[in-house]
């Protein structure tokens, strides 16, 4: 069976999932089996089929599983958000459509994605600008102590979601050029690059630290820096680089954790979420504690679709349930089993991503695929880890599942880029 036919077939489970999910929520909320769930399922299938046809037309050799896996995640997200708030779900569905449009546009416009290399400095500068946008007075918006949002008139978006793509494109291109230089000098058997080659890397580290302080978001900074270290390691094949990077990051994080109040609070709330003092404080540990309570409520099998306690009357019970805490809601309703299934889908997505990187023939493609995949994986780790108290909770979205237009659109662009790389790699391999 051809790759595209496998993709087509794999879309069926995603469609069934969204149909069944909506049916379950309908039954729970309206006490009836509404045929609307079939309608929603059909619309979803139609949209995915349209995207599939574009892939079939533009990228006949691309990885067949990536898009269906992402469709599964998106359908889980839509159902969960619908279950929380149907207005938000309608918005999210619109964003899903816009995401697909941008996905298709990327496939059509960037057939040869390597042209991106030509504009790498422009892309880097643009990304940095985007990152700092939330601090610009008048349009920047602070949410939970972190500067992540931008509001221009009616349009609100999170520039970091787009900046991450730009920075990875830049790093992939930059590292492709300098990877041999970075490992050229050895002192006592250890690779020690010249300062002028190391410089840009220190700049990236500095950037991560600046993000920590200016944007005040540990999660994003961890994501960016982790992605960068993965690319650096793949580019040089020297463990010393990521180790040194991690040490630097840890030192920086420790320094800020002990000096910057916002970071300090987050870490305290993380360590002792049930401390009555922190629990009652605004921006304290209430959110994390509620997240853990919600998960305990879910248990092994969960309460079932639409059954979790998310609001009391009209008052929401879980803060930011549709964004930060969507994983807690998933655990609450689908239990450990359902949550593991969702995590498994992410693992499969990440596996496809790394497979694409392995199959890619040129360094830029390999680095780009590695970087994009790692950032998605780390984003999942940062938010799920935060919600489950592995690391301090910071507000990033769960890719394709959380409510948020910027997130879903940016992540669809990432998938488009991965499919572009995959198509080229497989075509070249066949030729």
């Amino acid at each position, binding site marked *: 069976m051809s790759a595209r036919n496998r993709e087509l077939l794999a879309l069926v489970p995603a469609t069934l999932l969204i149909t069944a999910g909506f049916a379950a929520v309908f*039954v*729970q*909320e309206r*006490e009836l089996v509404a045929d609307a769930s079939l309608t929603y399922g059909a619309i979803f299938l139609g949209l995915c089929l349209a995207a599939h046809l574009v892939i079939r037309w533009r990228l006949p050799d691309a990885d067949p599983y990536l898009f269906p896996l992402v469709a599964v995640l998106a359908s889980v997200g839509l159902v969960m958000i619908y279950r929380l708030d149907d207005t938000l779900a309608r918005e999210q569905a619109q964003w899903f459509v816009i995401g697909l449009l941008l996905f298709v546009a990327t496939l059509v416009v960037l057939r040869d994605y390597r042209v991106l290399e030509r504009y790498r400095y422009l892309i880097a500068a643009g990304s940095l600008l985007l990152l700092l946008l939330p601090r610009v007075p008048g349009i920047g918006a602070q949410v939970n102590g972190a500067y992540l949002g931008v509001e221009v008139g009616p349009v609100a978006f999170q520039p970091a979601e787009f900046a991450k793509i730009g920075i990875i494109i830049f790093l992939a291109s930059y590292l492709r050029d300098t990877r041999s230089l970075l490992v050229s000098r050895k002192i006592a058997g250890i690779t020690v690059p010249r300062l002028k080659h190391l410089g840009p890397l220190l700049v990236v580290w500095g950037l991560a630290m600046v993000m920590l302080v200016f944007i005040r978001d540990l999660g994003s900074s961890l994501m960016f820096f982790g992605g960068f270290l*993965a690319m650096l*390691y*793949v*580019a040089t*094949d020297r463990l010393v680089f990521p180790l040194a990077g991690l040490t630097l990051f840890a030192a920086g994080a420790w320094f800020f954790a002990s000096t910057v109040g916002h970071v300090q609070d987050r870490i305290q709330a993380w360590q002792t979420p*049930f401390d*009555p003092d922190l*629990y009652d404080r605004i921006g304290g540990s209430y959110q994390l*504690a509620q997240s*853990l*309570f*919600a*998960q*305990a*409520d*879910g*248990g*092994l099998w969960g309460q*079932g679709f*639409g*059954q979790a*306690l998310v609001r*009391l*009357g*009209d008052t929401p*019970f879980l803060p930011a349930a549709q964004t930060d805490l969507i994983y807690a809601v998933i*655990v609450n309703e689908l*239990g*450990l089993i359902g*949550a*593991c299934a969702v*995590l498994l889908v*992410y*693992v499969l997505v*990440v*596996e496809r991503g*790394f497979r694409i*990187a*392995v199959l890619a023939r040129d*360094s830029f493609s*390999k680095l780009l695929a*590695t970087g994009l995949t*790692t950032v998605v*994986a*780390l984003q*999942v*780790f940062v938010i*799920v*880890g935060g919600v*489950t*108290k*592995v690391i301090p909770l910071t507000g990033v979205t769960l890719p394709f599942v959380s409510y948020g237009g910027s997130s879903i659109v940016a992540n669809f662009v990432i998938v488009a880029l991965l499919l572009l790389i995959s198509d080229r790699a497989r075509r070249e391999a066949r030729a």
Partner: protein
Amino acid sequence: MNGPIVRVFGVVLVLFSLLVVFTTRWTVLERDELQDNPQNKRALIAQQKIDRGAISAADGTTLARSVRRSDGTYTRRYPQQGLFAHAVGYSYLNPGTAGLERFYNGPLTGRGEGLRQTLRRLQGERPQGDDLRTALDPAAQQVALDGLAGRTGAVAALDPRTGRIKVMASVPGYDPNVLRSASATARLNTAPGSPLFNRTTQAGYPPGSTFKVVTAIAAIDSGTFEPGSTVDGSNGAEISGVPLNNVGNVDYGPVDLTFALTKSVNTAWARVGEEVGAPTMQRYMDRLGFNRPVQVDLPESERRPSGSFCKGRFVRATNPCVDVGRMAIGQDKLQVTPLQMAMVASAVANRGRLMRPYLATRAIDPDGRVTVDNQPSEFSEVMSASSARKVTEMMTRVVGEGTGTAAALQGIEVAGKSGTAERDVQANITQPWFIAFAPASSPRVAVAVTIERTVGGFGGTDAAPIAAAVMESLLR
């Protein structure tokens, strides 16, 4: 470059397994701790979303029901206000639950384990609790409260044939509806007379002479005495080395057991108790339910044992600190609950077979299926039917010609026993008691009445009329 890519994937796998480990920790390993965390209000809040079942009296009067609030949650209303406050209890987010509301929280919230309940949830039906039916009798309860007339005390009445409790009155009472407000709850918690306290099952009172019925049961059923046996009723008899006096210092001389009960002769019964002995006394007390939390379908925390209370705990009659002679006449260290004394009357009434007392008869789910079915059950075989007949005969004399004539009913033979415990000899503060059952030939009701403090009151004059009125209400 492929080697490092695979290794980066390995690191991602390690990170993701950390996520699985931590999710497992919260959902399975530390689930119970999280759910018991006092900051976790999920269970309580979830219950506010349940249409809790109604609680009704034997005649169908609604004692508790749920009303839907505008935000979709439910709250509790008690249409009879304070009438059955202590038996029914309350269920609110803030003070929590008590009484039947607490004991039957499972059925009332529809938390049945059955397949049907699960299916109903799968079909997405809103949780609806089961209705709870009780044997409580509102008219008789009102008679009991009217009889107490605001005086601190308690009345318990039940059907001796089944153990179904008809009356459970405790004064002072409260209106459970006010517990919706936190400040009213705090006020009630510290109010004088402890209105939240269920005196029928939680109070430990000296039983006075009503306990002589227990002694009579032990004396006759053990074969040590017959109703006609002669005992010394002289005043000032030495009991455990200390002289004991009869009420009014009357010197009765030799009397038979029936006379001794009819006139409530202390010295005679103290001797009987000593002769029967502590082990036998304790054996009958055990059969009657003493020395363990009183038998009723109320939460553990609302039930108290009856027995000799010595050095901060309940001890058995054989304990050296118990003066069995004085215990036999209801003095010494005895502390009893009014419901326990109603059980004593009930055991005699039901031909020696003590039925386990209970409030709720059954729970019925919204589809009409019975989910809880409380059938009458025997608590113990206290005495033989012939012993019970003899004790009944003696108790009938008490009401016919003795200290309990005020409990007599027109056309119905009543068996009873008065009691007057001394609370404060100097100030002449007494605690009147009366236990009774009727009709003596085929009893349908057993009752215990007590008033905590009266100035110079007697069981036969202050408590007996209340017992009579309650029995009359339940028999007609």
